[in-house]
């Protein structure tokens, strides 16, 4: 089988509008969560989120593009420009035909839906803009990336709630590994911070009103965020032959399904996905130095995830580091795995482990080294990135230092 490496990374998220600024924020343990600035926020009981501040779509896109690009598509295109730009690839001829786009999102064009439901239901309008459907569809972002960059190979969108991005990147990885594609643009995006997007989450009663504090005994729920992360996954020999700068290797991937409860996480399902990714990468579990946790800050996720890590790693669980960067950027739902993959790249490439900020008090049910509050310098060889979705669908990537 072929080896797969990452040769480009891009992002826009509550911590920064590109990868260097995001790394800087993660190193400093900066919090990108704050008061929401959206319509009707006064009617929400949850009024905080990881929102991308001072975002001006007109600074990046023209009027015709804005008519077609929902906020989640805009974020994707901005991140893809950075990633493909960094990779140095130009998609023409055979390479274009053998390269595609696989992206994750959960809500797709939710802002477009929200705005237009307002128009027809609340404002009583009987007409909507002609491009609402192509703007709100979940595959819009993947399509626009393929159009902008002439990516003519396998392209589609994955929607598995909070695991969407990891499932998407897993498919991209296996396509390059199997030889089906030479390069894949992959990752995910979410823009759910609108009245309807938050009101729906409020209903579940799992949201925090003040902060996301993963693994802390004082945690009281998750906080939503928005943004995108996009990467170029490339066949190793192809990258080497052209002298590309390799950020890290994608070494393994596994998925599992809890087949139990629609919202309550399962230790076994999470453990099978982590163990599967390690086995797929054909590495000894003792080589894993860092796990970017799913770490939502809910009571249920964090204790279940820690128990699963203990089961998979045994005694080694006490010597690895695990952190949740959701404490800084919030939960980007379908885009979260993509932004969190950045923390793994930073750990492998720069030797800096992103912290779990907001940590106040240890929880005996989360008794692991969660890198509380302050980033840490550490040389690691292998990192895992966890994503465990509602619906019991789990996806874990294993990355290796190059």
């Amino acid at each position, binding site marked *: 089988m072929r080896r797969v490496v990452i040769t480009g990374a891009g992002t826009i998220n509550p911590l920064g509008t590109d990868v260097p600024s995001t790394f800087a924020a993660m190193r400093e343990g900066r919090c990108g969560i704050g008061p929401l600035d959206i319509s009707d926020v006064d009617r929400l*009981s949850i009024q905080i989120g990881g929102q991308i501040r001072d975002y001006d779509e007109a600074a990046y896109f023209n009027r015709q593009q804005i008519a077609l690009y929902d906020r989640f598509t805009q974020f994707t295109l901005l991140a893809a420009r950075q990633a493909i730009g960094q990779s140095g690839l130009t998609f023409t001829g055979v390479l274009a035909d053998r390269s595609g786009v696989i992206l994750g999102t959960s809500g797709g064009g939710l802002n477009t839906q929200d705005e237009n439901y307002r128009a027809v239901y609340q404002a009583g309008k009987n007409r909507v803009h002609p491009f609402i459907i192509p703007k709100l569809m979940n595959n819009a972002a993947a399509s626009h990336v393929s159009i902008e960059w002439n990516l003519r190979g396998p392209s589609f969108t994955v929607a598995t709630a909070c695991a969407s991005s990891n499932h998407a990147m897993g498919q991209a990885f296996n396509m390059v590994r199997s030889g089906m594609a030479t390069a894949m643009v992959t990752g995910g995006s979410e823009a759910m911070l609108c009245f309807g997007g938050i009101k729906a989450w409020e209903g579940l009663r*799992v949201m925090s009103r003040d902060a996301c504090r993963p693994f802390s005994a004082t*945690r*009281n729920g998750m906080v939503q965020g928005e943004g995108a992360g996009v990467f170029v996954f490339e066949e190793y020999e192809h990258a080497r032959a052209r002298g590309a700068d390799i950020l890290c290797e994608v070494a393994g991937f596994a998925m599992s399904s809890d087949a139990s409860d629609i*919202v309550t996480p399962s230790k076994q399902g999470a453990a099978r996905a982590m163990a599967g990714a390690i086995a797929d990468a054909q590495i000894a579990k003792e080589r894993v130095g860092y796990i970017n946790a799913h770490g939502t800050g809910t*009571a249920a996720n964090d204790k279940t995830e820690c128990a699963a890590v203990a089961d998979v790693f045994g005694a080694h669980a006490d010597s690895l580091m695990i952190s949740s960067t959701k404490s800084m950027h919030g939960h980007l739902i379908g885009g979260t795995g993509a932004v969190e993959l950045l923390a793994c790249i930073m750990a492998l490439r720069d030797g800096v482990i992103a912290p779990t900020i907001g940590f106040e008090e240890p929880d005996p049910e989360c008794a692991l080294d969660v890198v509380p509050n302050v980033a840490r310098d550490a040389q690691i060889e292998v990192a895992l990135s966890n994503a465990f979705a509602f619906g019991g669908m789990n996806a874990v990537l294993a990355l290796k230092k190059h």
Partner: protein
Amino acid sequence: MMTTQEQVIAIIAEQAMLDTSDVQLHHTLADLGIDSLGLVESIFAIEEQLDITVPFNANDPSAGDFDISSVATIVAAVEQILAAQGK
């Protein structure tokens, strides 16, 4: 008109798929087979029917003074909220 107790019991009974006569004040939600999702749905139904807001976070069910340890404590908590919210 139904009393608050009758209303709360009717909501819990519906959630548990039981007859209201099978729901006793001393029952816990677990006794009635109501899990955490069922609890969140019951609280939603209580809020909608009684037009109140219940301070409940599933991450920390014991916070917010809304005691869910039995049917009786839920009834009492709802009555307290009704009084506090002037209803």
